[in-house]
């Protein structure tokens, strides 16, 4: 059981700095997810915690012990890899027991712990098989079993579900969550899939270009994105984002898009922007709805636009339409038929419109 802390940690690959002086405190027993686009430094960070990459700058501690100069085996961490990396020449039982054998445990104890782990993950019946005789989901379970059998201080997961098909991925996601409840150990989990991050994490760390954009609970990030990047990264479909500049109209500040559409600045942001400032404003699909099929928000701005495309998904329908020249998506929860080229009135909920400074990318 341990907390993990990263203090000013950097990683260089040649001249490229993959991780840029990040600070991160991971609480004991927390399920922390590092998420971001590929190349954002999330995997490098994880591998530095594991000891598989040198820490070029800064300090990593597990518990209160500095890890910088310790070998992976001295850190008491377990890692689950994207491609499982099961030892192909060993049976499942030998795979699970390998770390204990290396540690020099007695045969009987190895057997007990292997069976305990196999029981937790429901793989007891496969113990005598070789990895090549298992399905993808079963291999993933064996990989997790191999990790828990050691009773490590920290579990490290490196995109463990990205090799599975969609259905299995959902199933294994639930199992990982359940596993965390059973073993209650600190977990650091890397993924590029924001859905995985949202569903699994106690806290999410969003990374981009080697820096941390925001740390927070899933709902924090969804409701209060600190940057434009976080706003577009979290949530599906992605938040609609439109560039505009601030202009003054009738003594009120408004946002004028590049196409000349003018939208009033939300009331609570009136004092936070100034005339001439370049911004982007964003709103989620569910915050711009066809008036005909939704409830009109208290603070609404209306526009008329024709439907480019409609995707009925059962409980909801995604409507693609134009906001000036830019295509946006609207989500409605009523099972009405909407066809391409229908002309609809849309209401944008200004209370749920996010503003970001165009230069810094920070939320206003």
């Amino acid at each position, binding site marked *: 059981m341990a907390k993990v802390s990263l203090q000013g940690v950097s990683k260089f690959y040649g001249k490229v700095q993959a991780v840029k002086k990040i600070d991160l405190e991971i609480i004991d027993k927390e399920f922390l997810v590092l998420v971001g686009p590929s190349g954002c430094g999330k995997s490098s960070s994880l591998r530095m915690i594991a000891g598989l990459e040198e820490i070029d700058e800064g300090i990593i501690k597990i518990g209160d012990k500095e890890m910088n100069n310790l070998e*992976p085996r001295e850190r008491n961490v377990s890692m689950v890899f994207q491609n499982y990396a099961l030892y192909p020449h060993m049976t499942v039982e030998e795979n699970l027991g390998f770390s204990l054998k290396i540690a020099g445990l007695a045969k009987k104890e190895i057997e007990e712990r292997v069976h305990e782990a196999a029981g937790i993950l429901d793989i007891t019946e496969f113990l005598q098989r070789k990895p090549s005789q298992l399905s993808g989901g079963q291999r993933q379970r064996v990989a997790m079993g191999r990790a828990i059998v050691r009773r490590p201080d920290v579990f490290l997961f490196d995109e463990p579900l990205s090799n599975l098909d969609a259905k299995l991925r959902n199933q294994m996601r639930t199992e990982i969550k359940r596993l965390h409840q059973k073993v209650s150990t600190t977990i650091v989990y890397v993924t590029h899939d924001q859905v995985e991050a949202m569903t699994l994490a106690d806290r999410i760390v969003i990374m981009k270009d080697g820096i941390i954009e925001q740390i927070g609970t899933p709902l924090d990030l969804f409701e209060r994105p600190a940057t434009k990047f976080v706003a577009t990264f979290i949530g599906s479909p992605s938040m609609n984002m439109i560039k505009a500049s601030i202009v003054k109209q009738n003594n009120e500040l408004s946002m004028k898009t590049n196409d000349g559409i003018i939208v009033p600045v939300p009331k609570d942001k009136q004092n936070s922007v100034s005339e001439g400032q370049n911004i982007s404003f964003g709103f989620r699909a569910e915050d711009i709805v066809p008036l005909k099929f939704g409830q009109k928000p208290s603070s609404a701005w209306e526009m008329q636009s024709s439907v480019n495309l409609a995707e009925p998904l059962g409980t909801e329908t995604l409507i693609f339409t134009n906001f000036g020249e830019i295509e946006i998506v609207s989500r409605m929860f009523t099972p009405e038929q909407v066809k391409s080229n229908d002309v609809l009135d849309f209401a944008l909920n200004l209370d749920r419109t996010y503003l970001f400074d165009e230069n810094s990318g920070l939320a206003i």
Partner: protein
Amino acid sequence: MNKKQINNILIWFSAIILIILIMTPGLWVVLTAFRPQVDVMAKPAVWIPRNLNLIQFETMLFGGSEGSMGRSPIPVLSYLRNSLIISFTSTFIAVLVGTIGGYGFARHNFKHKNKYFLLIMLTRTIPGISLSLPIFIIFSKIGLIDTHIGIILVFVALNIPFTIWLTDGFFRQIPRAMSEVAMTDGCTKLQAFWHIELPLSRSGIASAGIFAFLISWNEYALVSNLARSTDSKTLTVGLMDFTAQFTINWPGMCALAVFIIIPALILTFMVQKHLVTGLTFGGVKG
């Protein structure tokens, strides 16, 4: 008969022709080894053996002169001993060094890595025989002519590049994650290599070993220059003992040739399943 059957017959027919072409010289060697000189020299050639005997083998291994043209028997057992010592030792060293080298190239990054690799591979583009004179001169200066060590040294140098190339490919096939998992599982780097990467690449190492052994076992040109006496002459060089100024003892020579082929054949059969790769597949991805 449909088109597919005709096609099949054609393929089989050409395969059989090809096999006959490849096999005939070998068969001729084997047949000759068991036949008297008269049959061997007969014109037109006698294809179907008339009387077979083991005289050549008896003469070769146990001495005796009947039917062997009165020649004193050649020291086959000494040659065999030399061949075994030289081939096994040089193979062992080449595989050991080559495997370490292959692992280094596959797993570690260092400056000018690709250039070094290319350089090592380029050494194999030089025909071995063109090296025989320089090697002879150097060896004669340092007293390595006609010694086991000298010949072993040459074979090790000859076989290491190939071993590096082959094992490098095998180590590359093993996902890096494999040894990384082993290291978080509590292994040192060496333990991860020993318990995980080495067993996974054993097909590659076995193949490299077989090739190195066969090259050493069958090499003739270089050794014929470096070996002078029974101290270091190998079986292949011993073949020339059957030639005299005006005569060649074909049956004797072929008997020795058969004698040379047998161990190589046995060894190849023993490890042939390792020559078929594919052990690492299954442990990764789905």
